[in-house]
């Protein structure tokens, strides 16, 4: 175990390197009586960006939110199969979901900063979980904002309201807020769908930087975007994983007919 690799940076208490590998095995999911996901199996590779594509309602968000157990508070949901984060089953009821969500950051479709200062937004997670000192917290906040490529734009107004930022800045602030927890995995659900092209491009560039240290999963409706940012792409259709493979291969030589139909715009 060496320290050169960025992924070993956040070693846990036992000294085992956390790599953020996610293995999904035969995962099915139900909202009440309605089954939303059917027998999904795939491996999310650390230091890669995986894009989830597919027509509306095919279960992309459901899948993403299963990884950090955001469905927990929704009554009537259930699942079968396993989702292993570094070998640990995240669906195990005995697992501490609070810790899990610190290891798996999430960014939502519509930016949702707290109506607090920029600083307090980024500091929110660390304050909960690690109780750092003043100077440690300053450091954490600066690091997170730098990693989210937002530092230079906001460093002179950290104490002003986050709601005064532009849409794109707010979304990068939400990324910074997630990064402040030092997660191993970052889940993004259509993070750029409400943004203009320039703001979108900045987010995409950011993902390129972040994937050096993280496992990234991004849901997107924008196929060009999936092609630009991702190393692998998973195509979902009606709750099933139809095809999963390297992005260039999936886009240029899809194995499945339904994949080809989707990426050539013949349906969805």
């Amino acid at each position: 175990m060496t320290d050169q690799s960025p992924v070993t940076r956040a070693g846990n208490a036992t000294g085992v390197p956390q790599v953020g590998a996610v293995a999904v095995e035969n995962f099915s999911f139900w909202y009440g009586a309605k089954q939303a996901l059917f027998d999904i199996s795939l491996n999310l590779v650390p230091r890669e960006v995986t894009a989830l594509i597919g027509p509306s309602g095919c279960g992309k968000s459901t899948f993403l939110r299963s990884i950090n157990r955001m469905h927990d508070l929704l009554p009537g949901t259930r699942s079968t199969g396993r989702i292993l984060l570094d070998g640990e089953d995240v669906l195990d009821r005995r697992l501490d979901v609070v810790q899990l969500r610190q290891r798996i950051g999430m960014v939502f479709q519509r930016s949702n900063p707290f109506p607090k200062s920029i600083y307090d937004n980024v500091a929110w997670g660390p304050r909960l979980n690690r109780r750092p000192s003043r100077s440690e917290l300053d450091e954490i906040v600066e690091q997170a904002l730098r990693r989210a490529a937002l530092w230079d734009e906001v460093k002179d107004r950290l104490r002003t309201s986050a709601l005064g930022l532009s849409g794109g800045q707010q979304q990068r602030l939400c990324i910074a807020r997630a990064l402040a927890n030092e997660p191993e995995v970052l889940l993004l659900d259509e993070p750029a769908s409400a943004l203009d092209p320039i703001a979108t491009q900045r987010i995409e560039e950011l993902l390129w930087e972040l994937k050096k240290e993280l496992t990234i999963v991004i849901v997107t409706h924008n196929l060009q975007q999936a092609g630009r940012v991702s190393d692998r792409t998973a195509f979902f259709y009606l709750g099933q994983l139809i095809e999963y493979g390297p992005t260039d291969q999936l886009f240029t030589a899809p194995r499945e007919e339904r994949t080809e139909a989707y990426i050539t715009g013949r349906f969805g």
Partner: protein
Amino acid sequence: MASTQLHGASVGDRIYRFTTTAFALSIPLLLVLLAIEVVVAAWPALKAFHLGFLTSSEWDAVNGVFGAAPAIYGTLVSSLLALLIATPLAIGVAIFLSEFAPPWLRQPVAFLVDLLAAIPSVVYGLWGIFVLVPFLREHVMPFLADRLHLGDTPLFSGPAYGPSMLAAGLILAIMVLPYISSVTREVLMAVPRSQREAALALGATRWEMIWGAVLPYASSGVMGGVILGLGRALGETMAVTMVIGNRHEISSSLFAPGYTMASVIANEFSEATNDMHLSALMAVGAVLLAITLVVNIIARWLVWRVERRGQA
């Protein structure tokens, strides 16, 4: 024929619009007229005593000297005391109902809490006289003064008669609780799901989510609920009159009897014989009206601010 029908419809429309506008306008108009009436009637007293009306403690109807300070003090202190007691309780109830209660329990409990607001205030007063006041005199006041040795502090000194500022504050607390808790429940439920998800996704427990994201988001709305409760407490008359002791005195002790503006008016209107006495009572009414109006405007504004942010 089509055109007469059209014409007929538009005349009906116009009449309808005219009457509804008239009705709608009549309400603010009524308020303005009422305020003017009160101030005009209060004018002689205000002119005779100037600021002394607000600052003097002497209220002597026989000699025609009127200072409303004890009543103003009593109104403010009993209301603030009520808020101090009711606010934490009401917020607790609202958090329980909006965040923790199982769905089947929500409606019934919310209904029961709201029902507190429907109990006639004279019934609260009766309960206050026959249950609360004796209970305070025999148990709570001795406990505070002797057991907790607070008897020497200004707040809890003096004899325990029963009817007191403390009794008024407690009864008001029960009466304003439903107002604070139902507004709080509403603003908590108006907090967008995205805020809750943001907190949870950062590794917050349910409590941390509520304390760190939901309550701060709703804070000015909760504040609005509290001030709405304050508005209620300031104007409450019957129940308070029955338990506060009705004495024109300012005492630091919560065990001592006091007076409120509303009680003064209710008690003395029928026996006000000379014009100055009547005018002084009107002036008390004017002060009370001004305070409640300001308080309510602040409350509306705070709630409006939260709702607007919720939509943004």
